[in-house]
């Protein structure tokens, strides 16, 4: 499965003690559920918190954005990626371009990850547009639409 990010925040804090309580709902972990209860749980969802303390370590400064990598989300809460999509980052003058070769789509931005966000939004828009127009698509776009359905799942 490909994880999706529910939310990421950072807050100023004191470097104090270590958290030590690993599971928030450990009393539910060994419980057997009926299909109806499973459905209820899938809709309400339990929540488990992992506390992690990072130890300082020496680190060699390196380039942050690889030229090629894979993305696991489309930033559209209605859509899930069933498999990672490969993205290639290029730079033209001051603009970064994120390219998804499978769908021949591009995202643009002032920095690498902003171009990736633009690409993620572009792919989501492409999905919804082709879905709406699926009965009027030509052969090329039908091919793209079929490929999109293999990769993207609606919630």
């Amino acid at each position, binding site marked *: 499965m490909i994880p*999706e*990010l529910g939310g990421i925040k950072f*807050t100023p804090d004191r*470097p104090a003690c270590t958290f030590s309580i690993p599971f*928030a709902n450990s009393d539910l972990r060994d419980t057997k559920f009926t299909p109806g209860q499973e459905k209820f749980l899938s809709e309400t*969802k339990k*929540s488990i918190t992992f506390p992690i303390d990072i130890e300082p370590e020496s680190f060699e400064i390196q380039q942050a954005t690889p030229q090629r990598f894979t993305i696991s989300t489309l930033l559209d809460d209605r859509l*899930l990626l069933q498999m990672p999509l490969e993205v290639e980052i290029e730079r033209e003058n001051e603009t970064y371009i994120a390219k998804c070769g499978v769908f021949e789509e591009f995202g643009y931005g002032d*920095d690498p990850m902003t171009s990736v966000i633009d690409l993620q939004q572009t792919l989501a828009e492409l999905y919804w547009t082709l879905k709406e127009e699926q009965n009027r698509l030509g052969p090329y776009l039908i091919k793209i639409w079929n490929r999109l359905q293999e990769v993207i799942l609606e919630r």
Partner: protein
Amino acid sequence: MAIREEGTGKDTLVGIFDRVISKEFPIDQNMTIYFRLANVIGHYEFRIDYVQVRTDKILFQARFERDFPEIFCEYSFRLRPPMVPIPEPGQYEFRLWANGHYVGRRRFIAEKMPKKGGLL
């Protein structure tokens, strides 16, 4: 700061920010990183890169692994890195990778506090 209520296990985030203002740079900032994941099952290797956007350099990196036995869960993470360096005013971001796949980022801006006394 992430505060956890023992009875319910719910987390409360206090002092969320997206901007750091300082009289001088470089500085080191204490912070907690909090994020939630859904749709995960099995074993995952995570990496968080702390990146200076202007230079696209990793200033700090954290790696950790976790097993997720249940898919009908949302998993929260609280990370306490050591002092987070902010070498100069500008944009910085945390990038989350899972099993080598990019998941998402959050960015904050570091600004120099303007001098008092108004315009010359």
